[in-house]
């Protein structure tokens, strides 16, 4: 019996160590929730909103950044995709049928093997076959309107004229999706700065509103040194002015699209009042 208890305690200790290490020894990354279909109000959409939608899709549902990121190196960077499109359509390796930049970018998403950037083909294919899936099908399943929104974003990202036009209606596949799963109700507007800070988890990185995040600048007296225009710009375009000692690219560039104008102004007022 003594041996049994010793073995039991030893086994439980080992299991406890593994569980403890997994809970406290490594960062607790909470995976993103399953994507929810977003109802597109294309009729009332401005080009700026269309570009913002493209950016959201690029970083979210489209899962583009999974491969097209600077650290992984598994797919080409797309900052200049819209500017090099013409050059690539002239390349002897180009297998597609596009004749405009918009058509090329569209084709590169639904038929990625039409042109494979050197060094990024499937192993053994001599850069004739792309490992990228058709993003209009399968698990990603971007609609025609969503693909065009990403094109708008890529053109804007490259600093070229946005020549893609906003479609007037959503794709049938998307409409069908709606019948299976109704879109979520729009988020109710938040009426206090604390609620906004909690909702957007500002305290995870910043010291603000009782939170003690240490990754971003301390905001407890930010109003003493920064004016409202600066604070507004920091929220809408976090990389425009990066505080000294902090790295660019750490703060998400989402608040301009995820907060309403009233919420944004309320937060700016609140931060400006922290002195």
């Amino acid at each position, binding site marked *: 019996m003594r041996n049994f208890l010793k073995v039991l305690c030893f086994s439980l200790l080992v299991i406890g160590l593994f569980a403890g290490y997994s809970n406290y020894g490594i960062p607790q990354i909470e995976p*993103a929730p399953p994507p929810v279909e977003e109802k597109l109000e294309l009729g009332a959409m401005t080009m700026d909103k269309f570009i913002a939608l493209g950016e959201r899709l690029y970083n979210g549902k489209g899962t583009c950044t999974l491969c097209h990121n600077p650290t992984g190196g598994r797919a080409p960077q797309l900052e200049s995709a819209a500017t090099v499109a013409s050059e690539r359509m002239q390349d002897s390796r180009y297998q597609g049928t596009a004749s405009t930049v918009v058509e090329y970018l569209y084709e590169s998403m639904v038929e990625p093997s039409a042109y494979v950037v050197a060094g990024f083909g499937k192993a053994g294919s001599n850069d004739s076959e792309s490992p990228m899936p058709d993003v209009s099908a399968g698990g990603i399943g971007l609609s025609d309107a969503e693909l065009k929104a990403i094109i708008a974003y890529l053109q804007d990202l490259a600093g070229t004229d946005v020549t893609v036009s906003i479609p007037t209606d959503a794709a049938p596949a998307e409409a069908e999706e709606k019948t*299976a799963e109704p879109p979520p109700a729009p988020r109710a507007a938040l009426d206090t700065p604390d609620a906004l800070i909690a909702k957007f988890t500002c305290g995870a990185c910043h010291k603000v509103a009782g939170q003690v995040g240490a990754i971003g600048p301390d905001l407890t007296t930010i109003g003493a040194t920064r004016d409202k225009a600066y604070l507004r710009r920091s929220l809408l375009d976090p990389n425009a002015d990066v505080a000294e000692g902090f790295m660019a690219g750490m703060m998400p560039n989402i608040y301009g699209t995820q907060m309403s104008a009233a919420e944004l102004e309320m937060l700016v007022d609140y931060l400006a009042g922290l002195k």
Partner: protein
Amino acid sequence: MMIKPPASNGKTRRVRKAGLVVFCLGLLLGVLALSLPGLDSGIAHAAELADTGADTATYQPAPKLTAADYPTIKGVNSRIAVWLAAQLHLWFAAFVLAVPIFVFIIEAIGMGTRDKRYDNMAYEFIKVSITAYSFTAILGGLLTFLLVLFYPHLFQYMSSIFKESMFYYALLFFLESATLYLYYYGWHWLQGGFRKWVHLSLGLLLNAVGTLLMFLANAWVTFMMSPAGVDPAGVFSGDAWAAIHNFLWNPINIHRVIANIAYGGSIVGAYAAFKFLSARKSEQRAHYDWMGYNANFIAISALLPLPFAGYYLTAEIYAYSQQMGITLMGGVFAWLFIIQAVLIGTLFLSANYYLWCGMGRSDGAVRYHKYIKYLAIVIVGAFLVWFTPHTLVLTNEELKALGGPYHKYLGPLGIMPAKNTAVNIMILFTTLSFIFYRRANKVATVSWASAGNAIQIALFTAGILNIFFLGVYHGYFTNTVYKVAASIPQVLTTLTIIVTSTAIDAFMYRGAKQVAPLHWGRVSDRSQYALFLLAVAFTWLMGLMGYIRSGIRQHWHVTNVFRDASPDAFTPGLGYAANVVSVGTILFMAMVIFVFWIADVSSRKTAADAYWKTPPA
């Protein structure tokens, strides 16, 4: 005229009967195999499908569900219930499929050497697996019930595609049970001469059926990861072989066969360790020490090629879907591989520690003691490289202190080429541990012993240098796409060293002089805890890897075809998953202790002569 003795007549009849039994079993298996879609030729099956092409029109697309389509029971988390039932079933199934493989090998060794100890050990191993077999069946039934109850649409969809293989799976299960019981209960009956061959043939049949059962179940699981034979909407083409022979089927088959053997070895090693610690007589300690050593040997033998099988599986996942591969290795699951590194490091360290302790069985091992500390340093060093993460989640102060997200010196150790190099070195030094252990009580007497040693040293040195060169060159002087190109030549180098050095050792120590005999049972109690550590770490590791394999489907029942719309469709955080795995491991260990206890109880006898009436004369 010579009259054959009656015994010969009887023997001949028995031989004929046995031959008939083996023939009938073989015929039955053959008939079943030919009936299985997927086992007949793909061409014949395709022709059959062409004749019944109209059938394809009867298949429905994968349903689009909402949360309301998933039945719930108050107070029961359906996902965790299915998760635990599936994992417990898998642990037991891995164990009961693995044990007959090495029981078959040990029985054959016993027959070859005519050493009864091997036969006794093989029998004791299979005895342990009998109760575990019942648990496997019970848990398999429970899993099926839970799937039907909580995920009826998924079960219906899967069974519409795999109905034939599910039907034959059930039939094969009967054959598996019958063969196992005949193999176990007939052990002492089928002894000596031809009967022993019949018994060994039953062992072979048992393994063939068991492996086939696992391959069928693997087809269902891998279809959910890499569906084939269906269109993008999930409409089944009617080609069952295409669905079975999906992209990840063979990589999983190979990985699971090897992993099962290593796992089975670790569990029976824990059994032997427990019996060793409980033994009161020196003969018993000697027996269970020997049994534990053999179990550990089996576990290590399968553990050495396991990282290669895992690498092949991962490479195939990347080949199937780069997105899935990146999600696995560079996305939300990446940190789980740091936990995996800790677990595999634990496995290697405990297996090596057991070998080093085991060298105390022979006084001749003193010659090798001075090398053990170097082996330990290298293995721990390799473990630390494997354990080094690529990217770190850091506070701003830490980022500033490091000068970026990667450490200047340690950062390069986070990428795969460094880890592949570390794993290969770890495997080679474990092989060295084993070679030292094997030589502990012997001195080679062949005339070329010095040359043989020199060749082995040269082989290890050249191989290790080659592994380092490949890792450094491909890892740090080529672009990302080619970074892992070193892995295959590294693996081939390691395998060449293992096979060649083992072969040289085997010839060199043939007829070697025993300088100090092995004293079985002369080993510390703490060495036995290394065997427990091996079993617990292996169980936990299997649970973790099972979660990763299933989890990379994320919010899909069947990847990109059949969406999981249940309230539990989220990918859980690392701590959450680790806690479920821990609870599962505790449950499994409790059941295994029961299995060990039952195996022990079956050999106990209580004298109660006074209780019974004296039989009439």
